[in-house]
């Protein structure tokens, strides 16, 4: 185990002092990505990255850049980019070249960031282990035989290995937070609607939310500020009422210390996790920083996973109907009829997990099942939302484990999709409620990283990031890196 301070904050300082150029940082990041044996990347864009780095260097020289200018990063391959393919981890989109940039891509381009490539992911973001990718499994940064979590596994590993200090992710039921916890990095799923979904390939539209995966909560705060904002091209995008985001963009984020009241779920739920000791230690550290904990009741939490899988699969089944082999994407050879074209193109183009969810979703939306599944699930979703609302009238934030356990071995849950789905037990509730949740590293269990989750009411990113920044000032779990050939140790 070693420690690194490969944060954006450190790199920005080095860039502005002229100690290093964006082109140098980009070259090193590209080299590390090329040499990567964890299978983090689906594609690299060397020329594009170097062009962006040159532009960034010019901006830095003219003092026209911002906090993020010149920093190398990577996009999860779910965000459409004009400069490269966007595969969504699927054979279906193996050769898909989008004619537009996702809003997130455009915003970070505008901030002067340098995109070195697109990261590996579970196919169409469906998975908790990054094993469903058409482009192969991603290996855990600390132990090659373990999964990195998913679906944003490539992004989490790329940050954990230090190839880039930041990568984008998307989170539908935990796809940012769970791999962040497994890999020992910091990941934020923001309030639903705060980051545009335009150009982000849909899995389950009412739950999908983009967010940053970075080294520290401080970095993540800045990244969130630059990624978020109302977008008229996304009808579910929301206008923020406060000016916090704008102030972070212009003046930077400084975490204020104000004592917060934090809720911990009562009952046996915390006994379900394997790393109780590490979780409790973290709790005490946060408490000793001046925050107080009270027990809170979240009665519908246990229903979250089934509700989530009904709703997410229902939406996915129709979101993925457009992949029919007619206009783009995989098309079977020599179709004999339109039906044959559909069946074989989709049969060949989609992997097993995607098919399972399309079938589940189609079933739950069908006449005769719709009321029992979809409608009922929507009602419970509402109750979960109400539970959180009631709880947040008493506390500023809720603390939960991010996952029930550490990362598991590659292939170990292959034949057990339900156990795989249980991975999402602690992450799904915030997704269903559309509220922000942050996963931060809180130690190691059996030599693998584990994380804790801070959840706040809608638009309270500032609150949970402040608690996390303070925790990370007093701990170094987020800076602890595997003993490998990570780059830029000198910063």
């Amino acid at each position, binding site marked *: 185990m070693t420690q690194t301070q490969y944060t954006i904050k450190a790199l920005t300082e080095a860039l502005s002092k002229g100690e290093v150029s964006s082109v140098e940082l980009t070259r090193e990041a590209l080299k590390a990505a090329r040499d990567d044996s964890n299978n983090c990347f689906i594609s690299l864009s060397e020329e594009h990255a170097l062009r962006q780095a040159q532009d960034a260097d010019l901006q830095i020289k003219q003092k026209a850049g911002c906090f993020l200018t010149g920093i190398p990063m990577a996009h999860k391959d779910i*965000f*459409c980019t004009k400069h490269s393919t*966007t595969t*969504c981890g699927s054979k279906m*989109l193996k050769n*898909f070249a*989008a*004619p*537009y940039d*996702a809003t997130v891509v455009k915003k970070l381009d505008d901030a002067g960031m340098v995109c070195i490539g697109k990261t590996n992911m579970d196919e169409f973001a469906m998975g908790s282990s990054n094993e469903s990718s058409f482009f192969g499994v991603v290996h855990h940064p600390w132990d090659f035989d373990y999964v990195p979590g998913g679906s944003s596994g490539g992004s989490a590993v790329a940050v954990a290995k230090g190839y880039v200090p930041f990568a984008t992710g998307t989170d539908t039921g935990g796809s940012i937070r769970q791999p962040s916890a497994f890999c020992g990095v910091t990941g934020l799923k923001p309030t639903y609607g705060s980051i545009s*979904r*335009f*150009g*982000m*390939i*849909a899995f*389950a*539209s*009412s739950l999908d939310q983009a967010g940053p995966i970075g080294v520290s909560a401080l970095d993540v705060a800045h990244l969130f500020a630059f990624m978020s904002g109302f977008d*008229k*091209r*996304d*009808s*579910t995008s929301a206008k923020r009422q406060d000016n916090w985001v704008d102030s972070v963009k212009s003046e930077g984020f400084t975490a204020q210390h104000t004592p917060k009241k934090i809720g911990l779920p009562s009952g046996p739920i915390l006994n379900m996790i394997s790393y109780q000791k590490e979780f409790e230690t973290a709790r005490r550290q946060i408490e000793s920083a001046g925050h107080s904990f009270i027990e809170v009741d979240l009665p519908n939490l246990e229903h979250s996973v089934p509700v989530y899988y009904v709703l997410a699969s*229902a*939406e996915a*089944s*129709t979101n*993925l*109907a*457009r992949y*029919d082999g*007619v*206009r*783009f994407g995989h098309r079977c050879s020599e179709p004999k009829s*339109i039906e044959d074209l*559909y069946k074989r193109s989709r049969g060949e183009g989609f992997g097993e997990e995607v098919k399972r969810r399309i079938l589940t979703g*189609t079933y739950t*939306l*069908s*006449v005769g099942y*719709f009321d029992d599944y*979809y409608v009922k699930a929507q009602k419970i979703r509402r109750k979960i939302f109400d539970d959180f609302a009631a709880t947040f009238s008493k506390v500023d934030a809720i603390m939960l484990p991010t996952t029930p356990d550490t990362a598991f071995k590659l292939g170990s849950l292959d034949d057990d999709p339900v156990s795989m789905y249980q991975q999402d037990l602690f992450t799904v509730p915030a997704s269903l409620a559309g509220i922000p949740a942050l996963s931060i590293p809180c130690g190691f269990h059996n030599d693998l990283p584990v994380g804790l989750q801070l959840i706040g009411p809608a638009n309270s990113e500032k609150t949970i990031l402040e608690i996390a920044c303070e925790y990370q000032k007093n701990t170094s779990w987020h800076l602890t890196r595997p003993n490998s050939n990570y780059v830029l140790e000198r910063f």
Partner: protein
Amino acid sequence: MASYKTELELRSGEILKMAWEAVIGLEVHVQLATSSKIFSGASNEYGAPPNENTCEIDLGLPGALPVLNEKAVEMAVRFGCAISAEINEISIFDRKNYFYPDLPKGYQISQFENPIVGKGSITIEDEAGAKKIIGITRAHLEEDAGKSVHDLVEDRTALDLNRTGTPLLEIVSEPDIRSAQEASEYFKQIHNLAKFIGICDGNLAEGSMRCDANVSVRQRGESSLGERTEIKNINSFKFVERAIELEIERQIDVLEDGGEIIRETRLFDPDKDETRSMRSKELSDDYRYFPDPDLLPLVLSQAEIEKIRSELPELPQQRERKYQTKFGLSSYDSKQLSVDRNKSDFFEKLTEASRLPKLSANWVNSNLSSLLNDKGLGFDQSPISPSLLAEVLIRIDNGTISSTSGKTLFRAFCETPSEISEIDDRIDEMGLRQIGGTDGLKDIVLEILKEHPNQLAELLDGKQKVLGFLVGQVMKKTNGTANPKEVNEIIQNEIKKE
């Protein structure tokens, strides 16, 4: 219900059919005349080269999201107000899921349980000319699909997605319609109204309006409904009437032969003059409707609705009534004048300026209509303004010029408009001022009579036929500026003297 049939009924097919009653409901799809699509910024113009009017949203590319066109919403509300319907303050867009090559996303965005427009009604005239109210169940917004083109590439189907995402308002009637003629009348009323309030160009040949007809028959006096069939995609008034007529006959024949009507979708083939089965409807269609998570519920405030309502023009049926009661026009003329908004507006401006409603109605329905028709122009593009035409009509009415000269002047003004202050100069320049008795008309008449002694003799013998000839000669000599009535009178006076 066992029904006793007389020998006569059994012998006469016509009378037998009297025992049956048709129950018809129409779903009319109106393409809204917005400049862009309902969920994208792509152009909504008809007739562009294939696939030119498409963007990533219409093509259903990954990551593309729908954004609702507010103009389409406004038009839907306008229609709702025009049929005095409830406008729902909250309506919801749903996904209607099915696979078809011309449906890029694999689902159509429509409104299922919560449409924007609720119950309303439209008044039509039935076969006997009596007013009949047809209930409208609802009207909802949805996107149109693209088109499969089968005759462009040999052995293959091509796709033109220009129509994808064209805003549609689907207007669903109650099963209040009882005959094919009524159905066609209802379709016409919707067509006229939609054009009138400016939400549709009404071009049936371009598919701007299409309808599906749900048809069933039952024994007269029966209160429950028979099994129905749906005839899809009919795009003319004539076809609606014929398709339903054929379907009613077919259903009666099936039932009278002891058969059963199967719920199915049928297609009208005008070439073969028949309807035929497309597909059975039983369990095959499960569209798996559910709220589209990409779109928030559409929320309208009472103020927004009231604003649209207040901006609604006076509607055709109100205008028709006004023309009859206030202006004393015939019901035929009133209807002719109120179908087209621009025509009606022109007529009203003309009447306001001329104070001559009947003359104005005649001119708008005849001279102006045929001129615009020849030029292929609408009433909003008339080369003569209502105020200028009013001056012409006033001068015809007060005898300054004859009707014939009025037409000459009208044609001249259509070519080169005149300032109102210069109208009289133009009349004189063109020599159109009517010659009355005091202006030497009598001399001209006498001259003509002198020139045609044979005809005069015939006239004196009581052959009134030649009177027209003589008047015509005078008109010819005066280039039409003589007042034919006066000419007539002068000749009659001369005869009496003889």
